């Protein structure tokens, strides 16, 4: 199993995880309880602390979420909540608000992918040429992805400010039409997407760079001999070879799109109105602003279920 890409088999890392000898065979399949206790129990013991965390923060909360979603529990409700069956799902999940937030999430993911994948790949390609100063460029370019999203989000909000912000000043100076960044629907989406891309492009770049560095050299040399241009060798050699890396990055970006919270929370707060309120933000609001725990749990359960294909794909990939 290669652990790269969060457990997905990808072209091996630069530096290469050579396939290790399969040590599993060293432990001969001996039968009997005593052998099991001696051989296998220690292995299980290594994973026990991890299991404690998994049970506390994944298993118990999921069971609780399902149970909460079938009740009418709110944070300000006095008296004991009771089970009301699937009413939360019928009346509160599949509302226009929820569907709207779903559309917002999908829009941010799709446009985000369209911006971030090409830009990240382009920059990775430039870094891959290994010109002088590449290392400096790489460390500068990857910086945005590591910075505290809340902190940079607030600074971007300052820069997006319509009268005092530097972005508007720049636009006016260059002579373009002004954008009402935080006060209009398009502006709101644009500002979220800009900041999101500012943080995600470095991630895509780094990932693609690792992918490029793992590619074999021969096809490119052969293409050059045959007189292929830069674009042709990119289109017919690089892209097909990078397919698996591209798929992984896409999947991670989709997952991150569903998780996206911090940036939206500080930049637009879902506004104007609820124009940019995505599912994570909606769920937070229902659970903690409206204090409706059960509805929040129901929305969460639906969100978690919607990502099932991702878990399956991802887990299947780790199994290989």
């Amino acid at each position, binding site marked *: 199993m290669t652990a790269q890409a969060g457990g997905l088999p990808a072209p091996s890392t630069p530096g290469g995880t050579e396939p290790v000898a399969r040590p599993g065979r060293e432990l001969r399949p001996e039968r009997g309880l005593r052998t099991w206790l001696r051989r296998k129990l220690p292995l299980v013991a290594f994973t026990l602390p991890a299991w404690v965390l998994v049970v506390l923060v994944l298993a118990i909360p999921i069971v609780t979420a399902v149970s909460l979603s079938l009740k009418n529990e709110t944070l300000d409700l006095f008296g004991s909540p009771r089970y009301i069956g699937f009413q939360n799902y019928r009346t509160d999940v599949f509302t226009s608000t929820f569907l709207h937030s779903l559309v917002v999430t999908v829009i941010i993911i799709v446009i985000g992918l369209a911006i971030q994948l090409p830009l990240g790949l382009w920059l990775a390609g430039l870094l891959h040429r290994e010109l002088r100063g590449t290392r400096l460029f790489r460390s500068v370019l990857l910086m945005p992805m590591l910075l505290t999203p809340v902190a*940079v989000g607030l600074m971007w909000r300052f820069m997006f400010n319509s009268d005092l912000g530097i972005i508007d000043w720049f636009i006016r100076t260059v002579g373009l039409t002004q954008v009402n960044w935080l006060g209009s629907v398009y502006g709101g989406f644009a500002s979220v997407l800009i900041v999101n891309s500012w943080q995600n492009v470095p991630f895509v770049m780094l990932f693609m760079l690792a992918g490029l560095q793992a590619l074999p050299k021969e096809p490119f040399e052969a293409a050059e001999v045959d007189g292929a241009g830069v674009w042709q060798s990119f289109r017919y050699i690089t892209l097909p070879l990078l397919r698996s890396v591209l798929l992984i990055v896409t999947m991670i970006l989709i997952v991150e799109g569903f998780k996206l919270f911090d940036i939206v929370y500080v930049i637009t707060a879902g506004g104007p109105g609820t124009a940019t309120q995505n599912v994570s933000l909606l769920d937070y609001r229902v659970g903690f602003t409206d204090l409706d725990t059960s509805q929040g749990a129901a929305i969460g359960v639906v969100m978690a279920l919607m990502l099932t294909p991702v878990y399956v794909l991802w887990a299947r990939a780790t199994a290989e």
Partner: protein
Amino acid sequence: MSPRAVIRLRHAGSYLVLTVAAIIALFPILWTLSTSLKQIVDALSIPPKFVWFHYTLHNYSKLFHTPGFGPAYVTTLEVTFGSALVTVVVGSLAAYPIARRWRFLGRRPLEASLVIIRAIPPIVLLVPLFSLVINHGLYDRPLTLVVVYAAFNLPFAVWMMVSFIQQIPYELEESGEVDGANRLRILGHLVLPLAAPGLAATTILVSLIAWNEFLIPLVLAGNNTRTLPLLISTFVQTRTVDWGVMAAGATVAILPIAILTVLAQRSLVSGLGIGGVKQ
């Protein structure tokens, strides 16, 4: 054009694009830093003042005197390093048998659970966690944050350590087995020392994610365990936004990371490539 000129031109083009990208990457960071050193008149002046303005540390002294800043800073450090320690220890232990491809009870379910933790939106788990934490009197406690942070970061730590451990040849362990050392000793005295650079990379990365964490403390932290990102986010909610103080707060949060990125670039890059990490 001679082929040489073409190559030169192409290099120049590459540098141009990289430079523009670097400016876009750095500008918001530098702008934050410069805003934090300005008086309010300069911070809001149009046209903007980039370098030539009256420098002041006033915003920082205001930030440090903000009620709750000191405790928030201490809490953030505690929770960051506490959770990083837990994540790395627990993650390395679990990574060892997974990396060696041994078959054992619960291996597949554990791997699947890690995938789900990595992919599930945190808010889904935080709604029930809040309810649980309140009911068990665990709200607003640093330890609660440490455990929850550690669990959310566990997949990164396990996957990174798996790949680092796999780079250590198994033959080295066999010599330890012959000497009769048990597995825990082999891990502690043989494998982990050899994987030290990987251990360092994992620790750095996990600390970074913990330092940046926002949604978990937003839900689970009360007045006593407020973290730095939470405190900074409250600066805009007050009616009059003091951009200078906010910039100072943002600088305090991001400057350590920016410096770390340059200093520990190598180990960060190796870790990021493996962990497939995003905050």
